Protein backbone atom coordinates (compact mmCIF):
# COMPACT_ATOMS: atom_id res chain seq x y z
CA UNK A 1 0.00 0.00 0.00
CA UNK A 2 1.31 3.46 -0.80
CA UNK A 3 2.82 5.59 1.95
CA UNK A 4 -0.06 8.06 2.15
CA UNK A 5 -2.61 5.44 3.21
CA UNK A 6 -2.84 4.21 6.75
CA UNK A 7 -3.73 0.68 7.77
CA UNK A 8 -2.83 -1.02 11.01
CA UNK A 9 -0.03 -2.78 9.11
CA UNK A 10 1.58 0.39 7.73
CA UNK A 11 1.31 2.01 11.14
CA UNK A 12 2.98 -0.97 12.84
CA UNK A 13 5.67 -1.18 10.18
CA UNK A 14 6.36 2.54 10.48
CA UNK A 15 6.58 2.27 14.25
CA UNK A 16 9.53 -0.11 13.80
CA UNK A 17 11.21 1.81 11.00
CA UNK A 18 11.30 5.33 12.38
CA UNK A 19 8.24 6.67 10.47
CA UNK A 20 10.53 7.35 7.52
CA UNK A 21 8.40 5.68 4.86
CA UNK A 22 5.38 7.97 4.96
CA UNK A 23 4.77 10.22 1.96
CA UNK A 24 3.18 13.67 2.17
CA UNK A 25 -0.58 13.34 1.78
CA UNK A 26 -0.81 15.92 -0.97
CA UNK A 27 1.61 17.50 -3.44
CA UNK A 28 2.94 21.02 -3.06
CA UNK A 29 2.59 22.23 -6.64
CA UNK A 30 3.70 25.59 -7.98
CA UNK A 31 0.55 27.41 -9.05
CA UNK A 32 -0.11 27.30 -12.81
CA UNK A 33 -0.80 30.55 -14.64
CA UNK A 34 -4.36 29.48 -15.47
CA UNK A 35 -7.02 27.05 -14.29
CA UNK A 36 -10.62 26.24 -15.23
CA UNK A 37 -11.63 27.38 -11.75
CA UNK A 38 -9.95 28.54 -8.56
CA UNK A 39 -11.28 28.34 -5.02
CA UNK A 40 -10.03 31.01 -2.64
CA UNK A 41 -9.63 29.66 0.89
CA UNK A 42 -8.34 26.25 1.93
CA UNK A 43 -10.67 25.69 4.86
CA UNK A 44 -13.10 22.81 5.08
CA UNK A 45 -15.53 24.43 2.66
CA UNK A 46 -12.94 25.29 0.01
CA UNK A 47 -11.36 21.83 0.11
CA UNK A 48 -14.72 20.04 0.02
CA UNK A 49 -15.77 22.23 -2.91
CA UNK A 50 -12.63 21.29 -4.84
CA UNK A 51 -13.13 17.61 -4.09
CA UNK A 52 -16.74 17.57 -5.30
CA UNK A 53 -15.89 19.70 -8.35
CA UNK A 54 -13.40 17.03 -9.36
CA UNK A 55 -15.45 14.03 -8.31
CA UNK A 56 -19.02 15.00 -9.19
CA UNK A 57 -18.45 17.45 -12.03
CA UNK A 58 -15.26 16.17 -13.66
CA UNK A 59 -13.42 19.47 -13.19
CA UNK A 60 -9.86 18.63 -12.18
CA UNK A 61 -7.90 21.51 -13.72
CA UNK A 62 -8.65 23.55 -10.63
CA UNK A 63 -6.77 24.96 -7.64
CA UNK A 64 -7.43 25.81 -4.02
CA UNK A 65 -5.49 28.93 -3.01
CA UNK A 66 -4.81 29.23 0.71
CA UNK A 67 -3.01 32.17 2.27
CA UNK A 68 -1.61 30.15 5.18
CA UNK A 69 -1.64 26.40 5.51
CA UNK A 70 -4.78 24.35 5.07
CA UNK A 71 -6.63 23.82 8.29
CA UNK A 72 -5.21 26.99 9.87
CA UNK A 73 -8.57 28.73 9.83
CA UNK A 74 -11.85 27.83 11.46
CA UNK A 75 -11.90 24.26 10.19
CA UNK A 76 -9.09 23.54 12.66
CA UNK A 77 -10.50 25.71 15.45
CA UNK A 78 -14.08 24.59 15.93
CA UNK A 79 -15.64 22.37 18.59
CA UNK A 80 -16.40 19.63 16.01
CA UNK A 81 -20.16 19.37 16.51
CA UNK A 82 -22.34 18.18 13.64
CA UNK A 83 -26.16 18.06 13.63
CA UNK A 84 -29.15 18.93 11.48
CA UNK A 85 -31.63 20.09 14.13
CA UNK A 86 -32.80 23.23 12.36
CA UNK A 87 -36.25 24.81 12.23
CA UNK A 88 -36.74 26.56 8.90
CA UNK A 89 -37.63 24.80 5.64
CA UNK A 90 -34.79 26.67 3.89
CA UNK A 91 -32.26 25.20 6.31
CA UNK A 92 -33.33 21.67 7.28
CA UNK A 93 -32.81 19.93 3.89
CA UNK A 94 -29.36 21.49 3.51
CA UNK A 95 -28.09 20.48 6.95
CA UNK A 96 -29.69 17.04 6.63
CA UNK A 97 -27.91 16.57 3.30
CA UNK A 98 -24.73 17.47 5.14
CA UNK A 99 -25.35 14.97 7.93
CA UNK A 100 -25.96 12.24 5.35
CA UNK A 101 -22.69 13.13 3.64
CA UNK A 102 -20.92 12.96 7.03
CA UNK A 103 -22.37 9.48 7.51
CA UNK A 104 -20.66 8.26 4.35
CA UNK A 105 -17.60 10.52 4.37
CA UNK A 106 -14.98 8.17 5.71
CA UNK A 107 -15.74 5.56 3.05
CA UNK A 108 -15.99 8.25 0.38
CA UNK A 109 -12.54 9.73 1.00
CA UNK A 110 -10.96 6.67 2.66
CA UNK A 111 -9.93 8.68 5.68
CA UNK A 112 -10.64 8.21 9.37
CA UNK A 113 -12.42 11.42 10.34
CA UNK A 114 -13.64 9.91 13.61
CA UNK A 115 -17.28 10.58 12.75
CA UNK A 116 -19.03 9.85 16.04
CA UNK A 117 -22.85 9.94 16.13
CA UNK A 118 -23.06 10.25 19.87
CA UNK A 119 -26.22 12.38 19.81
CA UNK A 120 -26.85 16.05 20.53
CA UNK A 121 -29.20 17.09 23.34
CA UNK A 122 -30.59 20.65 23.48
CA UNK A 123 -31.84 21.21 27.03
CA UNK A 124 -34.90 23.26 27.91
CA UNK A 125 -35.56 24.94 31.23
CA UNK A 126 -39.14 26.23 31.12
CA UNK A 127 -42.54 25.32 29.67
CA UNK A 128 -42.25 27.98 26.99
CA UNK A 129 -38.88 26.66 25.95
CA UNK A 130 -40.30 23.15 25.85
CA UNK A 131 -42.95 24.32 23.38
CA UNK A 132 -40.24 25.86 21.27
CA UNK A 133 -38.26 22.62 21.21
CA UNK A 134 -41.36 20.56 20.43
CA UNK A 135 -41.99 22.82 17.46
CA UNK A 136 -38.42 22.40 16.24
CA UNK A 137 -38.57 18.63 16.74
CA UNK A 138 -41.81 18.45 14.76
CA UNK A 139 -40.34 20.56 11.95
CA UNK A 140 -37.39 18.17 11.80
CA UNK A 141 -39.59 15.07 11.73
CA UNK A 142 -41.77 16.54 9.00
CA UNK A 143 -38.55 16.73 6.96
CA UNK A 144 -37.63 13.13 7.77
CA UNK A 145 -34.95 14.09 10.28
CA UNK A 146 -34.59 12.20 13.57
CA UNK A 147 -35.71 14.03 16.70
CA UNK A 148 -36.66 12.66 20.11
CA UNK A 149 -38.24 14.64 22.92
CA UNK A 150 -36.71 13.66 26.27
CA UNK A 151 -38.38 14.40 29.56
CA UNK A 152 -36.37 15.18 32.65
CA UNK A 153 -35.83 11.52 33.49
CA UNK A 154 -34.80 10.80 29.92
CA UNK A 155 -32.12 13.44 30.19
CA UNK A 156 -31.09 12.20 33.64
CA UNK A 157 -30.52 8.68 32.29
CA UNK A 158 -28.07 10.01 29.74
CA UNK A 159 -26.45 12.73 31.82
CA UNK A 160 -26.96 12.21 35.57
CA UNK A 161 -24.28 14.78 36.44
CA UNK A 162 -26.32 17.81 35.31
CA UNK A 163 -27.77 20.20 37.89
CA UNK A 164 -31.44 19.28 37.42
CA UNK A 165 -32.69 21.40 40.30
CA UNK A 166 -30.80 24.58 39.61
CA UNK A 167 -32.81 27.29 41.37
CA UNK A 168 -32.94 29.58 38.37
CA UNK A 169 -32.67 27.17 35.41
CA UNK A 170 -34.05 23.73 36.39
CA UNK A 171 -33.84 21.16 33.60
CA UNK A 172 -37.27 20.21 32.24
CA UNK A 173 -36.05 17.98 29.43
CA UNK A 174 -34.26 18.08 26.11
CA UNK A 175 -34.58 17.62 22.38
CA UNK A 176 -32.28 14.84 21.25
CA UNK A 177 -31.01 14.31 17.74
CA UNK A 178 -29.51 10.80 17.97
CA UNK A 179 -27.66 11.09 14.63
CA UNK A 180 -25.85 14.28 15.62
CA UNK A 181 -22.39 14.11 17.15
CA UNK A 182 -18.80 15.10 16.56
CA UNK A 183 -16.19 14.74 13.79
CA UNK A 184 -12.42 15.16 14.13
CA UNK A 185 -12.11 18.59 12.48
CA UNK A 186 -8.57 18.67 11.15
CA UNK A 187 -8.96 15.17 9.73
CA UNK A 188 -11.76 16.62 7.61
CA UNK A 189 -9.39 19.19 6.11
CA UNK A 190 -6.64 16.63 5.59
CA UNK A 191 -8.96 13.95 4.23
CA UNK A 192 -10.63 16.23 1.70
CA UNK A 193 -7.23 17.66 0.73
CA UNK A 194 -5.76 14.24 0.05
CA UNK A 195 -8.84 13.09 -1.85
CA UNK A 196 -8.90 16.27 -3.97
CA UNK A 197 -5.17 16.09 -4.64
CA UNK A 198 -5.54 12.53 -5.90
CA UNK A 199 -8.08 13.74 -8.41
CA UNK A 200 -5.58 16.27 -9.73
CA UNK A 201 -6.61 19.38 -7.77
CA UNK A 202 -3.68 21.70 -7.00
CA UNK A 203 -3.69 22.70 -3.35
CA UNK A 204 -1.52 25.79 -3.17
CA UNK A 205 -0.61 26.87 0.35
CA UNK A 206 1.07 30.16 1.30
CA UNK A 207 -0.69 31.83 -1.60
CA UNK A 208 -2.74 34.85 -0.49
CA UNK A 209 -5.24 36.30 -2.92
CA UNK A 210 -4.63 40.06 -3.03
CA UNK A 211 -6.92 41.14 -5.87
CA UNK A 212 -9.77 39.96 -8.07
CA UNK A 213 -9.50 40.83 -11.78
CA UNK A 214 -12.77 41.75 -13.44
CA UNK A 215 -13.19 42.72 -17.10
CA UNK A 216 -16.50 43.81 -18.61
CA UNK A 217 -18.44 42.51 -15.61
CA UNK A 218 -16.81 39.07 -15.72
CA UNK A 219 -14.11 37.64 -13.48
CA UNK A 220 -10.92 36.70 -15.34
CA UNK A 221 -8.65 35.67 -12.48
CA UNK A 222 -7.05 36.55 -9.18
CA UNK A 223 -3.88 38.38 -8.19
CA UNK A 224 -1.95 36.49 -5.57
CA UNK A 225 1.24 36.76 -3.55
CA UNK A 226 2.59 34.26 -6.10
CA UNK A 227 1.48 36.10 -9.23
CA UNK A 228 -1.59 36.42 -11.42
CA UNK A 229 -3.67 33.26 -11.79
CA UNK A 230 -6.25 33.33 -14.56
CA UNK A 231 -9.56 31.52 -14.22
CA UNK A 232 -13.00 32.07 -15.74
CA UNK A 233 -14.62 30.91 -12.49
CA UNK A 234 -13.60 31.96 -9.02
CA UNK A 235 -15.25 30.67 -5.84
CA UNK A 236 -14.72 32.56 -2.57
CA UNK A 237 -14.78 30.40 0.59
CA UNK A 238 -12.91 32.65 3.02
CA UNK A 239 -15.09 32.34 6.15
CA UNK A 240 -14.07 35.12 8.60
CA UNK A 241 -12.22 37.02 5.87
CA UNK A 242 -15.13 37.01 3.40
CA UNK A 243 -15.76 40.76 3.57
CA UNK A 244 -12.11 41.58 2.89
CA UNK A 245 -11.84 39.28 -0.10
CA UNK A 246 -15.24 40.25 -1.55
CA UNK A 247 -14.21 43.91 -1.23
CA UNK A 248 -11.44 43.16 -3.75
CA UNK A 249 -14.26 42.81 -6.27
CA UNK A 250 -16.07 45.89 -4.96
CA UNK A 251 -18.73 43.92 -3.07
CA UNK A 252 -20.07 44.96 0.30
CA UNK A 253 -21.51 42.01 2.21
CA UNK A 254 -24.21 41.61 4.87
CA UNK A 255 -21.52 40.25 7.20
CA UNK A 256 -19.61 41.29 10.32
CA UNK A 257 -16.50 39.43 11.49
CA UNK A 258 -16.51 38.48 15.16
CA UNK A 259 -14.28 36.42 17.44
CA UNK A 260 -15.45 33.08 18.95
CA UNK A 261 -13.51 31.22 21.63
CA UNK A 262 -13.46 27.53 22.54
CA UNK A 263 -11.89 25.65 25.43
CA UNK A 264 -10.52 22.27 26.34
CA UNK A 265 -9.97 21.00 29.87
CA UNK A 266 -7.43 18.54 31.21
CA UNK A 267 -8.27 14.92 30.38
CA UNK A 268 -10.82 13.06 32.49
CA UNK A 269 -12.10 9.52 32.55
CA UNK A 270 -15.24 9.12 30.40
CA UNK A 271 -17.92 11.46 31.74
CA UNK A 272 -20.03 12.81 28.87
CA UNK A 273 -20.93 10.43 26.07
CA UNK A 274 -23.04 12.86 24.05
CA UNK A 275 -23.16 16.58 23.21
CA UNK A 276 -25.16 18.77 25.59
CA UNK A 277 -26.27 22.35 25.02
CA UNK A 278 -27.47 24.59 27.84
CA UNK A 279 -30.79 26.22 26.96
CA UNK A 280 -30.59 29.10 29.39
CA UNK A 281 -27.48 30.66 27.95
CA UNK A 282 -25.26 29.83 25.07
CA UNK A 283 -23.02 27.00 26.17
CA UNK A 284 -22.35 23.48 24.94
CA UNK A 285 -20.06 20.67 26.00
CA UNK A 286 -18.77 17.30 24.82
CA UNK A 287 -15.80 15.08 25.63
CA UNK A 288 -13.03 14.33 23.17
CA UNK A 289 -11.61 10.86 22.68
CA UNK A 290 -8.48 12.03 24.52
CA UNK A 291 -10.67 12.76 27.54
CA UNK A 292 -10.64 16.55 27.52
CA UNK A 293 -13.93 18.35 27.88
CA UNK A 294 -14.48 20.57 24.85
CA UNK A 295 -16.77 23.52 25.27
CA UNK A 296 -17.71 26.81 23.78
CA UNK A 297 -20.17 29.62 24.19
CA UNK A 298 -20.98 32.91 22.46
CA UNK A 299 -18.98 35.28 20.32
CA UNK A 300 -17.31 38.07 22.29
CA UNK A 301 -19.67 40.49 20.56
CA UNK A 302 -17.57 43.16 18.82
CA UNK A 303 -16.00 43.28 15.36
CA UNK A 304 -12.69 41.43 15.35
CA UNK A 305 -10.13 39.85 13.07
CA UNK A 306 -7.75 39.11 15.94
CA UNK A 307 -8.27 35.31 16.39
CA UNK A 308 -7.93 36.08 20.10
CA UNK A 309 -10.76 36.80 22.50
CA UNK A 310 -11.02 38.49 25.88
CA UNK A 311 -11.34 37.42 29.52
CA UNK A 312 -15.01 38.36 30.21
CA UNK A 313 -16.10 35.74 27.67
CA UNK A 314 -13.96 33.12 29.35
CA UNK A 315 -15.44 33.97 32.73
CA UNK A 316 -18.93 33.91 31.29
CA UNK A 317 -18.40 30.49 29.65
CA UNK A 318 -17.07 29.04 32.90
CA UNK A 319 -20.06 30.42 34.82
CA UNK A 320 -22.38 28.70 32.37
CA UNK A 321 -20.40 25.48 32.74
CA UNK A 322 -20.82 25.67 36.51
CA UNK A 323 -24.55 26.37 36.24
CA UNK A 324 -24.97 23.24 34.13
CA UNK A 325 -22.45 20.84 35.73
CA UNK A 326 -21.31 21.91 39.20
CA UNK A 327 -18.89 18.95 39.29
CA UNK A 328 -16.64 20.83 36.85
CA UNK A 329 -15.66 23.32 39.54
CA UNK A 330 -12.25 21.82 40.26
CA UNK A 331 -11.34 21.10 36.67
CA UNK A 332 -8.49 23.02 35.09
CA UNK A 333 -8.57 24.50 31.61
CA UNK A 334 -5.79 23.34 29.36
CA UNK A 335 -6.17 25.66 26.41
CA UNK A 336 -8.45 28.16 24.78
CA UNK A 337 -8.28 29.55 21.28
CA UNK A 338 -10.40 31.59 18.91
CA UNK A 339 -11.45 31.91 15.31
CA UNK A 340 -13.00 34.67 13.21
CA UNK A 341 -16.64 34.11 12.38
CA UNK A 342 -18.38 35.43 9.27
CA UNK A 343 -21.58 36.52 11.05
CA UNK A 344 -24.32 37.10 8.50
CA UNK A 345 -27.13 39.51 9.27
CA UNK A 346 -29.83 36.82 9.50
CA UNK A 347 -27.64 34.06 10.93
CA UNK A 348 -27.80 31.91 7.77
CA UNK A 349 -25.19 31.36 5.07
CA UNK A 350 -24.87 32.58 1.49
CA UNK A 351 -24.02 30.20 -1.38
CA UNK A 352 -24.74 32.17 -4.50
CA UNK A 353 -23.65 33.94 -7.64
CA UNK A 354 -22.55 37.55 -7.31
CA UNK A 355 -23.29 40.51 -9.61
CA UNK A 356 -19.95 39.69 -11.28
CA UNK A 357 -20.23 36.83 -13.80
CA UNK A 358 -18.09 33.83 -12.87
CA UNK A 359 -17.55 35.03 -9.30
CA UNK A 360 -19.27 32.88 -6.67
CA UNK A 361 -19.67 33.46 -2.96
CA UNK A 362 -19.74 30.99 -0.06
CA UNK A 363 -19.91 32.89 3.25
CA UNK A 364 -21.90 33.86 6.32
CA UNK A 365 -21.45 30.61 8.29
CA UNK A 366 -21.63 32.34 11.65
CA UNK A 367 -20.61 30.05 14.49
CA UNK A 368 -21.92 26.85 12.94
CA UNK A 369 -20.36 26.14 9.57
CA UNK A 370 -18.31 23.08 10.43
CA UNK A 371 -21.34 20.79 10.33
CA UNK A 372 -22.12 22.25 6.91
CA UNK A 373 -18.73 21.41 5.40
CA UNK A 374 -19.70 18.47 3.15
CA UNK A 375 -22.99 19.98 1.92
CA UNK A 376 -21.43 23.40 1.49
CA UNK A 377 -18.74 21.86 -0.71
CA UNK A 378 -21.33 19.78 -2.54
CA UNK A 379 -23.64 22.72 -3.27
CA UNK A 380 -20.88 25.24 -4.02
CA UNK A 381 -19.32 22.80 -6.49
CA UNK A 382 -22.73 22.39 -8.15
CA UNK A 383 -23.13 26.16 -8.38
CA UNK A 384 -19.66 26.75 -9.80
CA UNK A 385 -19.88 23.89 -12.31
CA UNK A 386 -23.43 24.59 -13.54
CA UNK A 387 -23.99 28.24 -12.68
CA UNK A 388 -27.29 27.29 -11.02
CA UNK A 389 -27.94 26.84 -7.29
CA UNK A 390 -28.29 23.34 -5.90
CA UNK A 391 -31.91 22.72 -4.78
CA UNK A 392 -31.04 22.21 -1.09
CA UNK A 393 -29.10 25.49 -0.99
CA UNK A 394 -31.57 27.50 -3.07
CA UNK A 395 -32.58 29.69 -0.12
CA UNK A 396 -29.00 30.86 0.52
CA UNK A 397 -29.28 33.80 -1.85
CA UNK A 398 -27.25 36.96 -1.58
CA UNK A 399 -30.22 39.13 -2.60
CA UNK A 400 -32.50 37.87 0.19
CA UNK A 401 -31.53 40.85 2.32
CA UNK A 402 -32.98 43.13 -0.36
CA UNK A 403 -36.05 41.01 -1.15
CA UNK A 404 -36.96 40.21 2.46
CA UNK A 405 -36.66 36.41 2.11
CA UNK A 406 -34.52 36.18 5.23
CA UNK A 407 -33.63 32.93 6.99
CA UNK A 408 -33.58 34.06 10.58
CA UNK A 409 -33.58 30.80 12.62
CA UNK A 410 -33.36 32.64 15.92
CA UNK A 411 -35.83 35.35 14.94
CA UNK A 412 -33.60 38.06 16.34
CA UNK A 413 -33.16 40.45 13.42
CA UNK A 414 -30.05 42.05 12.01
CA UNK A 415 -28.02 41.99 15.21
CA UNK A 416 -25.27 39.42 14.91
CA UNK A 417 -24.61 39.29 18.65
CA UNK A 418 -28.05 37.67 19.03
CA UNK A 419 -27.65 34.78 16.57
Amino acid at each position, binding site marked *: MSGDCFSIFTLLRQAWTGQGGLKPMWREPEPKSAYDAVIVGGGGHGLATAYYLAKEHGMSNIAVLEKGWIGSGNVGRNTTIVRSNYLLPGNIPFYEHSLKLWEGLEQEINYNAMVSQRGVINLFHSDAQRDDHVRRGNAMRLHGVDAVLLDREGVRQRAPFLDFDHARFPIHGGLLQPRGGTVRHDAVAWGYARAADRRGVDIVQNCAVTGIRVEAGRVIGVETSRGLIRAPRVGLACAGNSSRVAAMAGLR*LPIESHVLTAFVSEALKPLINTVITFGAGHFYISQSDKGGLVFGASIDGY*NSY*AQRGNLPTIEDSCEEAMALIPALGRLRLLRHWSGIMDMS*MDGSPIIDRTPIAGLYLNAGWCIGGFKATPASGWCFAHLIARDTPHPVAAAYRLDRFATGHLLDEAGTGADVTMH
Partner: protein
Amino acid sequence: MRIPCPHCGDRSHDEFSYGGAADRRRPTTADFGPEWLDYVYLRDNPAGLHRELWYHGSGCRCWLIVERNTLSHAITAVHAVLPASSPAMEDA
Protein backbone atom coordinates in the same frame (compact mmCIF):
# COMPACT_ATOMS: atom_id res chain seq x y z
CA MET B 1 -9.77 44.66 26.38
CA ARG B 2 -10.37 47.76 28.51
CA ILE B 3 -12.18 50.82 27.25
CA PRO B 4 -11.00 54.19 28.59
CA CYS B 5 -14.35 55.85 29.25
CA PRO B 6 -14.00 59.65 29.30
CA HIS B 7 -16.29 59.77 32.35
CA CYS B 8 -15.37 56.64 34.31
CA GLY B 9 -11.80 55.80 33.35
CA ASP B 10 -10.38 52.46 32.16
CA ARG B 11 -13.09 49.80 32.44
CA SER B 12 -13.41 46.16 31.33
CA HIS B 13 -15.37 45.79 28.07
CA ASP B 14 -18.04 43.67 29.74
CA GLU B 15 -19.37 46.82 31.44
CA PHE B 16 -20.33 48.03 27.97
CA SER B 17 -22.73 46.92 25.25
CA TYR B 18 -21.58 46.99 21.68
CA GLY B 19 -23.51 49.15 19.23
CA GLY B 20 -21.71 48.36 15.98
CA ALA B 21 -20.34 50.70 13.33
CA ALA B 22 -20.65 54.33 14.39
CA ASP B 23 -21.14 56.07 11.08
CA ARG B 24 -24.25 54.38 9.75
CA ARG B 25 -26.92 56.97 9.02
CA ARG B 26 -30.62 56.17 9.23
CA PRO B 27 -32.20 56.90 5.82
CA THR B 28 -34.66 59.76 5.61
CA THR B 29 -36.95 57.99 3.14
CA ALA B 30 -39.73 55.72 4.40
CA ASP B 31 -39.59 53.36 1.41
CA PHE B 32 -37.50 50.23 1.61
CA GLY B 33 -34.84 50.41 -1.09
CA PRO B 34 -31.08 50.47 -1.52
CA GLU B 35 -30.58 53.00 1.30
CA TRP B 36 -32.41 50.89 3.86
CA LEU B 37 -30.70 47.71 2.62
CA ASP B 38 -27.41 49.44 3.16
CA TYR B 39 -28.32 50.78 6.58
CA VAL B 40 -29.86 47.61 8.04
CA TYR B 41 -27.82 44.84 6.45
CA LEU B 42 -24.59 45.85 4.74
CA ARG B 43 -21.36 46.49 6.62
CA ASP B 44 -17.88 47.79 5.79
CA ASN B 45 -16.46 45.27 8.29
CA PRO B 46 -12.91 46.60 8.04
CA ALA B 47 -9.79 44.75 9.16
CA GLY B 48 -8.02 47.62 10.90
CA LEU B 49 -9.37 50.89 12.26
CA HIS B 50 -13.09 50.77 13.13
CA ARG B 51 -15.22 53.63 14.48
CA GLU B 52 -17.86 51.99 16.65
CA LEU B 53 -20.47 52.65 19.33
CA TRP B 54 -20.30 51.30 22.88
CA TYR B 55 -22.84 51.96 25.63
CA HIS B 56 -21.45 52.14 29.16
CA GLY B 57 -24.44 50.46 30.82
CA SER B 58 -22.63 49.52 34.04
CA GLY B 59 -21.06 52.96 34.37
CA CYS B 60 -22.06 56.43 33.25
CA ARG B 61 -24.81 55.08 30.93
CA CYS B 62 -23.50 57.14 28.04
CA TRP B 63 -22.96 56.15 24.44
CA LEU B 64 -19.33 56.42 23.36
CA ILE B 65 -17.62 56.48 19.98
CA VAL B 66 -14.55 54.27 20.16
CA GLU B 67 -11.83 54.02 17.54
CA ARG B 68 -10.42 50.53 17.76
CA ASN B 69 -8.22 48.36 15.58
CA THR B 70 -10.08 45.13 14.78
CA LEU B 71 -6.79 43.29 14.10
CA SER B 72 -5.18 44.07 17.47
CA HIS B 73 -8.10 45.37 19.62
CA ALA B 74 -5.95 48.46 20.38
CA ILE B 75 -8.10 51.51 21.17
CA THR B 76 -6.80 54.83 19.90
CA ALA B 77 -9.61 57.30 20.70
CA VAL B 78 -12.80 57.45 22.77
CA HIS B 79 -15.28 60.25 23.08
CA ALA B 80 -18.83 60.63 24.29
CA VAL B 81 -21.55 60.93 21.64
CA LEU B 82 -23.23 63.75 23.56
CA PRO B 83 -21.35 66.61 25.24
CA ALA B 84 -21.11 66.19 29.02
CA SER B 85 -23.45 69.12 29.76
CA SER B 86 -26.34 67.86 27.60
CA PRO B 87 -29.74 67.19 29.24
CA ALA B 88 -29.41 63.47 28.45
CA MET B 89 -26.30 63.36 30.62
CA GLU B 90 -28.03 65.02 33.57
CA ASP B 91 -30.86 62.47 33.42
CA ALA B 92 -28.32 59.66 33.64
